[in-house]
């Protein structure tokens, strides 16, 4: 895939060469810079862009194959429901309010668990990067624990916490904790020494060092970790609800499975995918916003 910035108009594209600012002329003593804003040949702009069509192509193809397979009855309809049946089930769970209820339960859980896990992860990652003592104490434990899949903790956590709300929040928080902690640790460790030197040369106060230098230097990478942790928390949440819950999207799917309503299971699958996709996109936008100076 081509990087997105290639599609920007020339004025918005970052480049090594300096550009003239609108309405301003260069001072006589300024080094030579390109006088005119550069215009690229606009040939491609006139043609129909195929990109949006390409990106909806694969779900469309999937849908056609799915419809065809069910129409030819390659599998019994109880096992593989048709897209039309799923659409009908969609209408059903929305009109009864079942979908909204489960979804809001799931999203509330996600918000709680994710907020706790990501905040603790951020604090822990920063402490790990900034303090040699914390790194010596918890570094190896952290590196080992993060290799254990979240789902492996489920049986133990059920015994310890039961299957109530606390259990689910803990599971989600655990899933959200590690990517954020790792990203915070790595990005603080990765701040070049030269940034600290410049800050020290100008005797910048510590709050300036943090707010104007360390945060802008680390936030893009930390956000990437937060984005990963959010989508991972969502995956774990749905999986945990499939196993133990009395409400939530995963529970809706589990109930559907037990009652042989595979159309409702499919609705859950689609909603889980769409929500995960939307959360990821939302964070992508946030990340782009934090890095907007790159394309200025």
């Amino acid at each position: 895939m081509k990087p997105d910035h290639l599609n920007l108009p020339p004025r918005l594209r970052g480049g090594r060469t300096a550009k003239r600012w609108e309405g301003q002329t260069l001072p006589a003593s300024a080094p030579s810079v390109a006088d005119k804003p550069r215009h690229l040949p606009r040939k491609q702009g006139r043609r129909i862009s195929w990109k949006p069509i390409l990106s909806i192509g694969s779900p469309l193809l999937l849908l056609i194959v799915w419809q065809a397979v069910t129409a030819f009855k390659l599998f019994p309809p109880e096992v593989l429901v048709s897209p039309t049946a799923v659409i009908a089930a969609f209408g059903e769970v929305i009109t009864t309010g079942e979908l909204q209820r489960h979804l809001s339960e799931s999203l509330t859980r996600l918000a709680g668990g994710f907020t706790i896990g990501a905040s603790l992860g951020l604090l822990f990652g920063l402490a790990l990067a900034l303090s040699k003592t914390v790194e010596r104490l918890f570094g190896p434990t952290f590196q080992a624990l993060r290799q254990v899949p979240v789902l492996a903790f489920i049986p133990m956590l059920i015994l310890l916490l039961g299957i109530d709300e606390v259990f689910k929040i803990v599971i989600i928080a655990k899933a959200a904790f590690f990517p954020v902690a790792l990203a915070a640790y790595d990005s603080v460790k990765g701040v070049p020494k030269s940034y600290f030197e410049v800050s020290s040369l100008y005797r910048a106060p510590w709050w300036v060092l943090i707010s104007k230098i360390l945060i802008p230097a680390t936030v893009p990478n930390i956000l990437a970790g937060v984005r990963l942790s959010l989508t991972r928390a969502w995956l774990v949440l749905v999986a945990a609800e499939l196993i133990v819950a009395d409400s939530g999207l995963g529970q809706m799917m589990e109930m559907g499975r037990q009652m042989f309503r595979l159309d409702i299971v499919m609705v859950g699958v689609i909603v889980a995918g769409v929500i995960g996709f939307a959360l990821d996109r939302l964070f992508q936008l946030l990340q782009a916003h934090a890095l907007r100076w790159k394309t200025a």
Partner: protein
Amino acid sequence: MDYVPHSQIPGHKSRQTGAVSLKGIKKQFNFKDRELKVLSEFSLDVQPGEFVSIVGPSGCGKSTLLRLIAGLDDTYDGTITLDGQRVAGTSLERGLVFQDHRLFPWMTLEDNIGLALTNRNIPKDAKAKLVADHIALVGLKGFEKAFPHQLSGGMAQRAAIARSLVNEPKVLLLDEPFGALDALTRVHLQTELQRIWLAQGSTMIMITHDVEEALYLGDRVVVMQANPGRITHTVDVNLPHPRDRASPVLHKLKDEILAELTHVPEPSNPVVRLIKGDDQ
């Protein structure tokens, strides 16, 4: 040609402050279990408002020397004073320009320069005026809102110079400031630096690889040798500023210094001396 001290040139603010004195500086790095002597008994006195260029081969401790004066490194023997006061840590009185511009990529030009003023207790509009004045000083007016990646290498280095001057330091240290620029931009910025120095009048100590640059700008050129870093020679350049690059005096001095820098000294290593049979 008669030597005219720069303090008598019209437009040059003569300064009473900015005397840098280095006495018996010794610095070593511990590399694994070996001690690497970087500077040995280095002494140098720089007059207020003087422009001193330091040339020398790679690894002769030039950059280390500037870092010591700037206060980025406090582990050395000897004394460094500025106007009689012993140097400790970094200070706004001592500016430093690196070879790379070291502007923060997420800040505009004016924010980058403004960062240097965060420790100054002056009103906001006074800060804004200082920033604007120094952007104008380095000829970057119109680029206040530009991000570093939108500037050419030469423009970014001008911005770095503006940032280091915005606190009006008594002494400005320049660590190969034009080393990463192309030849044409370099010549252009040398002329600019001379103009800025004449207008600003702070003491300047510049490290460079370029003998021509050292002679064109310096009142004095200090020649160093490596292993350990020490002064082997000092050349006074008795020419008024602004200077003519084509001056025969500069060319003669350049040949002298280059001859010295490329001269292979008698090996001081006893093993080599033994092989050469000098001890017999």
